[in-house]
């Protein structure tokens, strides 16, 4: 490690485990170390026991979660039963719609085993947008791109479904 790197580490700090996780999440893709560190500061580490509910369907949402360790099941209630939508593993994320507004959650998230997650919540995201508009808008743009891709996929799937009928 050269002297400049040592000074840089002393002033800006070293890359933490959370930063290493965050840099692999699509929403934070393309952010530099300094920007990732700023995101790390506003994330909250939460631990869940097996079968503990992270959030319930139809509850107002406050933020997104990134799985640090363990796995999470997303389920949705129909009139008669509860169906599994997807099982998410380490380094995957869910609940990102709640970063935009507090509309009700579209599914219930439950920890399968002992699970650790990083919570990234709307109040902190809104503060980030206000305090650091440049970084905030980078995250916002990525979020919009992810939602656009998902919308495109949903539209294509429903069109295909209609054609099959």
């Amino acid at each position, binding site marked *: 490690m050269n002297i400049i790197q040592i000074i840089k580490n002393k002033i800006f700090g070293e890359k933490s485990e959370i930063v290493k996780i965050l840099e692999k999440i699509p929403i934070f893709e393309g952010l530099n170390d300094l920007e990732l560190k700023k995101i790390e500061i506003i994330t909250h580490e939460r631990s869940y026991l097996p079968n503990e509910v992270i959030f319930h369907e139809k509850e107002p949402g406050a933020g997104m979660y990134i799985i640090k360790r363990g796995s999470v099941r997303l389920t949705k209630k129909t009139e008669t039963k509860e169906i599994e939508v997807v099982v998410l593993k380490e380094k995957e994320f869910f609940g990102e719609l709640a970063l935009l507004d507090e509309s009700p959650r579209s599914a219930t998230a439950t920890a399968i085993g002992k699970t650790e997650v990083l919570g990234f*919540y709307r109040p902190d995201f809104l503060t980030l947008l206000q305090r650091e508009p440049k970084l905030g808008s980078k995250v916002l743009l990525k979020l919009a791109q992810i939602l656009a891709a998902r919308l495109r996929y949903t539209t294509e799937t429903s069109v295909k479904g209609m054609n099959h009928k």
Partner: protein
Amino acid sequence: MIQNLKVLNWVKLIVIYLIILFALFIFYLAQDLLTPFLIASILVYLLNPLVDKLEGSGIRRGVAVSLIFIGIIFVLFIIIVIFYDSIINEINTFKDKVPLYFNKIKSSLEESATILEKNISFLPKGNLKKLINEKSSELPQIIEKSIPSLITKFIEVITGTLIVLFTTFFMLKDGRTFRKEIIKLVPNKYFETFLCLLYEINKQIGNYIRGQIIDCVIVGILSIIGLSLIGLKYAIIIGIVSGITNIIPYLGPIMGMIPGIFICIIEHHSMLMAINVVVVLIIVQLIDNVVISPLAVGKSVDLHPLAVIISVTVGGALMGVWGMLLAVPLFCALKVTFEILYRGIIEYGSWEN
């Protein structure tokens, strides 16, 4: 497993309640020591955006806080250097005039006593005058006796200032970590609601305190300018007092007028001057209410003026000056808590689960 979860959530909730109770108990026991911590909290709210800004540019938080502290000490040094002569002059003149004021008050009391004794027949002649003379001759001794306690007070002020500086430094540097560690204890079930609540309360109180302080500084400066223009003696000190009292909503500006009027009567012997002081301070208040306050404080606290006046009065009755200062932020925190919990429970029924 679910049973374990319920027990864990209850344990966490109880721990939070115990911590809050313990903190309140400590505050109750150490009421007199509370002032430096409250001042430090106000400074933290005031300086936090600046530290965030510096940290945003890539500097480590500890370095950013140190830089700000060095900056503040430098600015204070400059202010003291610039205003030292005039403030010391005002204090010295005021100090020299104290015996004069004392004699004036004494002679006016004696005059009143003579009038009273003349008009009320059953009052024994000369008794009141004797009493006034006795009591006034005791005054130098009383002052002499209280000198050791003045020295203790001075030491208390120095200790208080050091506590304020240390607390402010560490709350600015590590406050976020403390906050994060404390809210870690909140049970998962209530975490999102709690975080939203904390954000709203923090935003409103922060905006209010920052706005009020900026407002006070501007009102203080305007008062100094206005009072100097009409030629009031001790304009700087009276202006500073009027700026400081302005922090108390609605009642503060009236309190700020009293020292000015007192100086007019005692020093200038002029009711016209007193009217001038009142007019100047009213004009400053008008400028404050029309221009400065909407910009500085804005709608940081969405409270009805009547609610503000009532909470300030109740706060004053319960906790004196600090109560008056803390009334609005506390009322605001309660209002936000009620609104968020109401929305969560009534609109979403989110705690049914």
